[in-house]
């Protein structure tokens, strides 16, 4: 046997193995009888060994069976087949149909247009199989087409495009299925290789008017694909009459669906087309029983014909039918999707079906629930946001984890949209954020963290409530167990430190921040905790001192009280003087400060010497161990806290009874001054573009290769994550300065590292003005996450003059927003992808050329007359095409939009290319002046197009 002869050289498989080849069924049986996946592996590897042997056999039977086995294994057991590509090609020329089909199947499943350099070898064979001859049964030609369709590479397409033509234009009924396959293949070829459009496009158009329904269906499918994929469907507009004919005449739902899809794309381009197709579509909508067709009609109306009230009404009625079909979740789901299409254009529609939508929120089907959730959050407005969000939040508590997070995420996105434009009552919203965190399934920690901090920065009035919520979160023992919420805790810690002046009980706060269980948190968050302790401690100390000062000044200012601090009656007048004395540099709102101070005196009366030193002892006990912590961020901050603590103790402030003593103690007053300066600067939101405005320090090369950094880092045995990462606090350079002044034991390791590699650190010398421009370390500005950056930008840059409804009860607090209008526009421009118009351009070229051909035959006179008439026509379509003519003659119409012009230019350049190609093809004209001449000639050709387009126009009217 031939198989054995070929194999005798290789190892020594048993005689039975080599003598009798196992068939595909045998392999499948062996696979099925293998009990475990491990034994399956051995079966596969054994089969592979066999295949490798057999496939080299010169006997085509043996080869084809082994290739068949290989194809099976590769398709369903994910083996790589590329090594056998050549063997597949070897089978193609076999006179036996099964051999060739096996070869084609293997090739079509495994060939990749760009990875197989063997494809060119198949060109000839494919061409042979395309040729209509009795030797090629349709099954063979179909397989060949299939390979071309699936593996078509631009080269293959270019070579074989013209060979598809006989198949596309054959009229015999027997080959109708083959013709449809050729259409589908032509589509794929066009997609990978747009420059075959001149060859293939015209036959495809002809297929639309074929008498064979199968061909028409395939052709409509192909055009649907092309029109939907085209970045600009304009080139397909001239085919509208053909599609209209199909829309009216065809009874095939598949064809109608595709035609509707094409019209959905074309209708927005041409208003008269829209009014023309409206009637047939409504008819279909009323008449058809096929739900798929009805849904497509609805979709077409809701996406492209929303200006036509009556049609929308009709579609909405059908949508309601869908929504109320209790037995079919598919229809309910699609009904909700249809509603969401209308959400922005016709909100009343969603309002009308409100009940059904809300009911769907408890549907057993996740799809339906998610759609209904999106519709519900889409309905949110200023007046109902509180009510609906409260409901949703309660609902989230009861739902399964995945959907709960879906709900929470949707609420966060909607409420946070456009800088919380829906939110009037921030106290409520902050409390809601707190409640979201209580949901045991909540995994949206990062977004909640961002919003907590962001609201703190932007909304001054929300801070007291924010601090209250943050405190509740910090003392909640349950939250420490959920890693998704660590970020929320970090935000809470930061908020309570930054806005500690609103806290009712700072001591309790310190206790919460230093509870032993914070060891569960990652080091970066612990660092934030400790930094907050630092802030709280300095705040307590300053208020204690201020208290002494205030009491003193009160008494000095003429009031009779001397020892009682808690008397509020007489405060107002003397306090004004206090104010002017204490804060000279502050030109802010004095009354507000007075109130603040009043508040202070009111609240902080319970700071006694004892309570302060108790607080200090507490902090010392809890923080001291951390100063030995292995994580640098924690260690550094802990040492800062201890440093401040010891410095304060040294001053022996508790000996001070009165303010004049305070002044005499120079060291103490210096410290107080520093502390006040450290935290008086308020942090604000940072413009997303701020980073661009920061000038790069001289000698700093941001593009330098940092690969040597890791080497340096390993030298110091510092974990890179700890030394490179930033915490929320670290972006306040002033604060850092203070820290380093106050720290008695600077963490020497890090300092030395900084000194030595100062090159890699940004200079810290910035004055206060620039401070606000400095981006937060975690601002999503790094080029790595572009998505976030643009998203943030869009949020930040929405025009701040959004018309607001009158606020009925409570004035909405001020939300700080940054105005940077031009930021958006540019970024938007850059995000718009440069679409490759290659195919549309090619098709436009072909279509216009097609159209121009008949008109060449002596219609020139009438055409020019018509042109004059049409010049006054308002159709964009015409103006655009006239443009190419008028520009030629140097009088440009004033109506042309800029866009059209660029359009046209591209179009023109394309023509130029085509001209060159043409001339080279016919190799008649080659000189440069010829091209110029042709240019003019082309002008005439486009002039001839004009009469053709009115033909469409007339039809549409």
């Amino acid at each position, binding site marked *: 046997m031939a198989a054995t002869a070929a194999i005798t050289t290789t190892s020594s498989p048993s005689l039975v193995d080599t003598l009798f080849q196992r068939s595909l069924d045998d392999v499948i049986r062996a696979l099925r009888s293998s009990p475990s996946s491990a034994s399956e592996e051995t079966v596969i590897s054994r089969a592979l060994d066999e295949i490798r042997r057999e496939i080299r056999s010169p006997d085509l039977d043996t080869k084809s069976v082994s290739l068949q086995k290989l194809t099976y294994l590769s398709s369903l057991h994910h083996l790589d087949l590329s090594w056998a590509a050549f063997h597949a090609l070897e089978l193609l020329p076999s006179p036996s*149909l099964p051999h060739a089909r096996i070869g084609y199947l293997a090739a079509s499943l495994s060939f990749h247009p760009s990875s197989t350099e063997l494809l060119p070898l198949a060109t000839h064979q494919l061409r042979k199989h395309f040729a209509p001859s009795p030797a090629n049964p349709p*099954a063979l030609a179909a397989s060949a087409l299939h390979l071309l369709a699936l593996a078509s590479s631009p080269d293959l397409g270019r070579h074989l495009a013209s060979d598809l033509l006989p198949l596309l234009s054959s009229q015999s009924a027997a080959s109708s299925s083959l013709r449809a396959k050729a*259409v589908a293949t032509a589509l794929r070829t066009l997609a990978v290789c747009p420059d075959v459009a001149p060859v293939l496009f015209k036959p495809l158009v002809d297929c639309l008017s074929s008498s064979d329904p199968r061909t028409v269906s*395939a052709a409509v499918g192909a055009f*649907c694909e092309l029109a939907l994929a085209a970045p600009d469907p304009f080139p397909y507009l001239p085919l509208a009459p053909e599609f209209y004919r199909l829309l009216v005449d065809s009874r095939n739902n*598949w064809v109608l669906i595709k035609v509707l899809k094409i019209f959905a794309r074309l209708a927005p381009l041409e208003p008269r087309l829209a009014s023309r197709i409206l009637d047939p579509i409504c008819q279909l909508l009323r008449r058809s029983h096929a739900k798929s067709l009805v849904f*497509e009609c609805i979709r077409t109306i809701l996406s492209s014909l929303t200006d036509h009230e009556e049609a929308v009404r009709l579609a909405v009625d059908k949508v309601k039918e869908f929504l109320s079909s209790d037995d079919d979740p598919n229809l309910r*789901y*699609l009904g909700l999707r249809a509603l969401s299409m209308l959400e922005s254009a016709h909100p009343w529609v969603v309002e009308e079906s409100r009940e059904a939508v809300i009911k769907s929120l408890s549907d057993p089907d996740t799809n339906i629930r998610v759609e209904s959730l999106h519709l519900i959050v889409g309905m949110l407005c200023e007046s109902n946001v509180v009510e609906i969000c409260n409901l949703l939040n309660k609902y989230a508590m009861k739902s399964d984890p995945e959907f709960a997070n879906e709900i929470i995420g949707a609420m966060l996105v909607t409420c946070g949209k456009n800088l919380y434009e829906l939110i009037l009552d921030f106290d409520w919203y902050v409390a809601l954020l707190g409640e979201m965190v209580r949901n045991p399934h909540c995994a949206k920690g990062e977004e909640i963290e961002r919003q907590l901090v962001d609201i703190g920065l932007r909304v001054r009035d929300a801070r007291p409530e924010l601090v209250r919520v943050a405190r509740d979160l910090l003392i909640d023992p349950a939250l420490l167990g959920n890693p998704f919420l660590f970020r929320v805790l970090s935000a809470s810690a930061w908020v309570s430190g930054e806005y500690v002046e609103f806290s009712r009980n700072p001591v309790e706060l310190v206790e919460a921040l230093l509870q032993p269980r914070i060891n569960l948190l990652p080091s970066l968050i612990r660092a934030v905790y400790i930094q907050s302790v630092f802030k709280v401690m300095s705040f307590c100390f300053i208020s204690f001192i201020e208290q002494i000062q205030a009491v003193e000044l009160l008494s000095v200012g003429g009031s009779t009280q001397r020892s009682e601090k808690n008397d509020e009656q007489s405060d107002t007048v003397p306090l004004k003087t206090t104010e002017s004395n204490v804060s000279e540099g502050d030109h802010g709102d004095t009354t507000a400060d007075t109130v603040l101070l009043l508040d202070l005196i009111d609240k902080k009366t319970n700071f006694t010497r004892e309570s302060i030193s108790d607080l200090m002892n507490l902090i010392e006990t809890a923080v001291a161990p951390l100063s030995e912590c292995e994580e640098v961020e924690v260690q550094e901050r802990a040492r800062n806290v201890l440093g401040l603590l010891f410095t304060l103790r040294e001053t022996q402030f508790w000996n001070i009874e009165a303010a004049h003593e305070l002044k005499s103690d120079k060291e103490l007053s210096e410290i107080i001054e520093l502390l006040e300066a450290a935290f008086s600067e308020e942090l604000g939101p940072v413009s997303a573009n701020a980073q661009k405005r920061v000038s790069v320090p001289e000698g700093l090369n941001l593009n330098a290769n940092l690969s040597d950094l890791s080497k340096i880092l390993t030298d110091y045995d510092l974990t890179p994550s700890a030394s490179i990462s930033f915490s929320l606090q670290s972006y306040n350079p002033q604060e850092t300065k203070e820290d380093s002044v106050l720290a008695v034991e600077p963490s020497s390791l890090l300092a030395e590292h900084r000194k030595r590699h100062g090159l890699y650190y940004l200079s810290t010398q910035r004055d206060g003005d620039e401070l606000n421009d400095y981006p937060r370390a975690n601002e999503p500005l790094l080029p790595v996450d572009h998505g976030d950056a643009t998203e943030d930008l869009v949020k930040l840059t929405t025009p701040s003059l959004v018309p607001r409804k009158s606020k009925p009860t409570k004035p909405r607090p001020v939300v700080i927003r940054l105005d940077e209008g031009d930021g958006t526009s540019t970024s938007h421009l850059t995000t718009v992808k440069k679409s490759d118009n290659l195919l549309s351009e090619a098709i436009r070229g072909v279509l216009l050329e097609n159209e121009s051909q008949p008109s060449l035959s002596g219609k020139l006179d009438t055409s020019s007359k018509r042109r004059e008439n049409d010049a006054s026509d308002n159709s964009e379509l015409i103006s655009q095409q006239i443009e190419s003519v008028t520009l030629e003659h140097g009088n440009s119409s004033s109506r042309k939009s800029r866009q059209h012009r660029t359009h046209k230019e591209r179009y023109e350049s394309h023509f130029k290319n085509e001209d060159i190609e043409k001339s080279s093809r016919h190799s008649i004209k080659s000189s440069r002046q010829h091209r110029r001449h042709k240019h003019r000639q082309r002008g005439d050709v486009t002039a001839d197009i004009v009469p053709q387009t009115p033909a469409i126009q007339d039809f549409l009217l």
Partner: protein
Amino acid sequence: MIRAVIVMNTQGKPRLLKFYDFQPPEKQKELIRSVFAVLSGRPDNVSNFVEADAIFGPGTRLVYKHLATLYFIFVFDNSENELAMLDLIQVFVETMDRCFKNVCELDIVFNFNKMHAIVDEIIFGGQVLETSSEQVMKAVEEISRLEKSSNSISFVPKAVSGRFGR
């Protein structure tokens, strides 16, 4: 267009795979796994559509039908109609039922080539070409008739080897 046709059983084993955009074998494995993870989590009597953006890229969705031990899955993009795809699955299943006389998973397992022939008659290069199961069956029968007639001449040795090799 249709991006992929997948038949897998309820254990996640693929029985028929057809990707109309080339996918390397490793990627196929991953796709199958993620599709199975999504489908196995869905209860019965819910809608048959799944957004597949995360698995097959933006704008793609899949429609599936769960029959006996098998999932039939079509992946498609916005140029197809959801309900029409659902109908197409029905056509596909009906055709198999006709071809194999009461189809079951085993038929699909042991008729690799025929399954591909059926799919290729219905969907070609991602385009739906035939929606009548009768026509599909005719075409498939014609192919097997032609294959047999050319088999009878050249495949004698194989028939022998097939019988002995079991």
